[in-house]
């Protein structure tokens, strides 16, 4: 499998010389859809990701400044009743599973390696800066939208929720719109 784009290989952890090619997107999509369906059938809810991170943030703020956390309506929603552990939460366990599942799949395919994903025209440091700031912007966007691509686009999309579809369309629209400005990072 040819690699026309440069990579920054660090220490090689579980890497094959020729990592397995990715699964067909259609098959992977079916797999993902079945996982989502399983969540509907077993739990009556869908997937999520940003909510788990919010729980982490809320728990962190409560540890550092409990009074401040409790006086903030946003954190309180994620902290639950006093005395309950905000990390004993469905999404938190799910996101841990996501990391494990990703690792398993990566190891089976020989795709686990210490690396910084980036295009050839940008430096590692700049890429990491963009990753951080981009992550921050995304964090804000996901909270405004009450979810992310997992919770809103996938879960709400399959349930045909209008807000979720609107979110999904907005994400694609704005991402395409600004892609030009970040082309040096990827191409």
């Amino acid at each position, binding site marked *: 499998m040819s690699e026309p784009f440069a990579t920054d290989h660090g220490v090689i952890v579980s890497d094959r010389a020729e990592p397995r090619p990715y699964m067909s997107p259609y098959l992977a999509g079916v797999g*993902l859809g079945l996982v989502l369906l399983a969540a509907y059938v077993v739990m009556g809810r869908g997937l999520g990701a940003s909510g788990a*991170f*919010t729980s982490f*943030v809320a728990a962190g703020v409560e540890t550092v400044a409990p009074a401040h956390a409790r006086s903030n309506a946003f954190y309180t929603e994620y902290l639950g009743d006093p005395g309950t552990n905000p990390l004993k939460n469905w999404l938190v366990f799910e996101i841990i599973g996501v990391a494990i599942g990703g690792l398993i799949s990566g190891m089976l*395919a020989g795709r686990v390696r210490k690396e910084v994903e980036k295009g050839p025209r940008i430096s590692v440091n700049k890429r990491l800066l*963009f990753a951080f700031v981009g992550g921050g*912007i995304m964090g804000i*966007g996901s909270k405004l939208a*009450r979810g992310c691509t*997992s919770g809103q686009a996938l879960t709400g999309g399959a349930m045909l929720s209008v807000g979720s579809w609107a979110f999904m369309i907005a994400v694609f629209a704005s991402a395409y719109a600004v892609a030009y400005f970040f082309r040096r990072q990827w191409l």
Partner: protein
Amino acid sequence: MNAPFYKFGLFGEDASLLVALFIGIGFGFFLERAGFGSARKLAAQFYFTDLRVFKVMFVAIVTAMLGAFWLSWLGLLDYTQVTVPSTYLVPQIFGGLVFGVGFVMGGYCPGTCCVAAATGRLDGVVHLFGMISGILIFGELYSFIEGFYTSTPMGRFTLPDLLQLPFGLTVFLVVLLALAGFAAAERLEKKFNPSGEIPS
């Protein structure tokens, strides 16, 4: 019918956390299988060289949508007990626009940055911390944003309601839309990336 099992009381909250773990494992597994542990692959969507983000997402949506529809029709699933995210139209659209910018800049979404971090991608780890910071900022500024955040609530508002169409017809239209999208995606990929050389 006794599904969703949890809502019918077939198991308790602690067991549900275990379920969460396993569902998460399946979720992460297929995300990585699809190549979403790689920011370059994800970003390629927006440069038309690899449209798998669209493909995977829409196949997943159609699969789960059809699955839920038919299981409900067969009487095996109580459709009304499946939570539909509430619609808060304006903040969701605005949030989506912001999210899209973050997506192209950062290269991941909240779920995939976990997968990336788990498979050793440093930028995934950094992205994760960035996300946490963003959420923290949001939380701290919440009192200013609260009004906007809770505006235009529409509750459980689905496409059949909006379009005033029968449910089944809407499902069919979504399937058609997806299939048309896939055909278009294949064509676009051939045009922008004829050699099929995609970043891996």
